[in-house]
């Protein structure tokens, strides 16, 4: 997206200025702010994301993280600008060094993978353009790849509730990374979990 268009979207929707002031400041970078704490329009999501492909693939992708509790020492829900930082650890260590001193991927995984140590839920965030259902968004959740750590429906509902509070650009569904057969099989067991699920097969 050309810089002038990014600036226009940010001007109209106040990128990053959403009650969590200061977490994702617009530093004037031509690729937009490093993150947003609220996403209200397709245009804002476009700033944060990269094009991937055409349906059945996601059209666009970026990343998110959301805290496991309302502990004020934790960061709020963040939608990461993958055009600025492609992966979570690089984003967190560069943008929030005070929160994550000496962060490496090992420490990052400890923050997100298991119930015992998890401080944040983290995953990919997709935009789909379904030929029948139209445009919707999907989020995945990283967990350790063991049956004991697969999320229960109520845990995913908690993540969903956190996200829909600040993501209002479109319908949101729980979905799965293509390599994550375990989460997908787990979700097939759920009946009326309280949120929509998109099974890509």
């Amino acid at each position: 997206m050309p810089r002038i268009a990014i600036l226009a979207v940010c001007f109209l929707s106040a990128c990053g200025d959403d009650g969590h002031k200061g977490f994702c400041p617009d530093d004037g970078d031509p690729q937009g702010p490093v993150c947003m704490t609220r996403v209200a329009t397709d245009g804002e999501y476009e700033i944060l994301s990269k094009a991937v492909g055409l349906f059945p693939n996601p059209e666009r992708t970026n990343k998110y993280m959301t805290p496991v509790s309302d502990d004020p020492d934790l960061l709020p829900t963040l939608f990461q600008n993958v055009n600025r930082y492609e992966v979570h650890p690089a984003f967190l260590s560069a943008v929030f060094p005070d929160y994550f001193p000496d962060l490496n991927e090992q420490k990052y995984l400890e923050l997100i993978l298991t119930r015992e140590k998890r401080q944040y839920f983290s995953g990919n965030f997709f935009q789909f353009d379904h030929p029948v259902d139209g445009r919707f968004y999907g989020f995945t959740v990283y967990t350790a790849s063991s049956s004991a750590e697969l999320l229960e429906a109520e845990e995913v509902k908690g993540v969903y509730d956190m996200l829909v509070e600040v993501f209002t650009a479109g319908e949101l569904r729980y979905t799965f990374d293509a390599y994550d057969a375990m989460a997908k099989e787990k979700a097939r067991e759920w009946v009326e979990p309280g949120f929509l699920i998109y099974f890509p097969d």
Partner: protein
Amino acid sequence: MRWMVLLVFILGCGNSSGHNDAGFGDGDPGTDRAADGGDGYDRVAWGWVKVLEVSGTYISGSEVGAYFAVEASYPRSLVHHLDIPCQQTQSEGNCSLWIHPALLFAGCDPPCNGDQECMYAGTEAYCQDLPAHWDVGSVTIQGLKTDVTMTPDDLDCYAASGLPADLFDDGDQITAGIEGGELGPFSLSAAGVADLEVANTTVQLQRGQPVTVSWTPADPESRVQVLLLSGPHDPTRPTAAILCDSPDSDGSVQIGAALVDGFINNHVVVQKFSRITRYTRDVQTPFEKEIELIVGSVVELGLILP
């Protein structure tokens, strides 16, 4: 291919940061490379050309690309090149277990550029330049339903886009013609393979139990490779992998319980694609090191772990 686009951007092949001349001193081939009695260059090249039809959850497409460098590196390798990121620790039958020697994951700050890999020394992460790479001019794949010609990007990565999912038929003679560029011309050839069909795209691993992966035999001239991968998503190296390689006519391969246990014991998270591939290939050493053409039909596999 579409989903692979995401992987490519994560891996960095195409994230341009300029030509990497690491190891070539001042960049003057006449002074930096030893004379070989020919035209003054002592060429050393490792590389690959891939021509793959891919089927998976999100994937319905093809992967056609190539890369040539003075030596191998993980970010620019093919997924079955496990000897680069891992060490083989066990083997049984047609399968082997590969483990990353240290379960550490690098995170470099600032992030490495597209021509570097984030590495670890003790607890310190640092960006290491990738081995110098070659611009070989154009790479033309002939024998496909539509011929493909690729030119390098700024990092000397070759990748075709916008190709159909159905690239070739069983038995088609497929030739990769390398124009030459900084290396000199050469070519590799391999046969097209039949589409791979599997009854189950999920592999369930249970501690202490062998597991069998099956396919429908269709092509006695080809082989089938099963690759199970674990670890954080790219660019992080895999933490554990199982690689099996069998004649297509076998129709299945059994992964022994010891290998399954080794994989389970060394995995943390699965954020990589496992796959089964029917393939033919041509490997030559025109410039000291192996250069490979692989032609294959790939089906992505999902892993279920205990």
